[in-house]
């Protein structure tokens, strides 16, 4: 794999990874703020 191809693929993975993770974190935060507390506690793993 050439340097150019490696950097291009790595950059794409990095950008996509950050976007997906940021979106997931944002969704999870919003869902946590508003979720049913009964449901939340019920799904807890001990």
């Amino acid at each position: 794999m050439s340097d150019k191809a490696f950097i291009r693929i790595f950059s794409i993975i990095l950008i996509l990874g950050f976007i997906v993770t940021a979106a997931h974190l944002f969704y999870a935060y919003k869902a946590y703020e508003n979720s049913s507390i009964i449901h939340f506690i019920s799904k807890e793993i001990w």
Partner: protein
Amino acid sequence: MKRVLFLIFTVLFFVAVNAGIYFTITRKTGNNNDGTTQLKMIDLGRYLPFEEESDLARVDSSLKLTEEDDLPVLDGAAALVPVYASVIDNCYPEGCVTYEGGTFSDDNTYGENFTSDSKMQYQNTIRGFDALVEGNVDLFFTAYPSEEQLASAKEKGVELEIVPIGLESFVFFVNEDNPVDDLTVDQIRAIYRNEITNWSEVGGPDYMINPLTRVKNSGSQTMMEKFMQGDMLSHRKLLSIFGKSIGYSFRFYLTGMVSDNNVKMLSINGVYPNAENIRNGSYPISANFYVVYRKDNDNPNITRIVDWLLSEEGQKMIEGCGYVGLC
């Protein structure tokens, strides 16, 4: 080859991070209390008046309103749907609860499809209280309104009559597998003031405590703020999400309407919140629930219904719904 492995490792890293977020948070969230799904906190289809299989309390009512009467529109908190649906079932004429399209559905924007002229509505505490103040609802069944709600009514020049009709306990609950079964009132207050932050401080395992709160102006949040005497954390703490949670609700909502076997109610000061302990006053956190109406509402059937609710028949109906009567 090394570069390919590095790229695969990078992808796996993001997969692992997202799996961690999913198992820690996303998987446990659900039944959101905002927007369109707020009103699907209960299975409303179980509490439809005039349906043979509904879970309503039926008594031999001496109050029978007819189609010629000016029938008050009833609405209320999710936890009190069985009560006001039972009032309609016992005292109203059949046909006064109507659905768009002719049949009940909980699949539209607000989780129900009552027509605007239906005598039963279901807008839950926040929207329903506003509808009462606006004059679109005649009788509203609720926990004691919040300071904010009362101030909002006052600001609009609306005076409210708030009549206690039954007794309910306020309960705290944890996951079924949490070994803690009992907390004191002081311990709970300390947890919700972030003075106790680990379950080991109250006889449990070494886990952070995640004290969950509810949306402002909901019935249980208003009750909790009252219980905390105005001194509690203002919102859910983000980092404590990695701990094990505690939450609060009204007893019948938790045990009768949602009935989730994976959660358990806690004894408070050594007293379990069962009907007997609520009635005899030994359970320490009980509160009335109320029917609220505008003082300037001149529909004579409002006071007839309120009087009936306070009568032996009405109290029997309230007990039949799973709540505790006033005496």
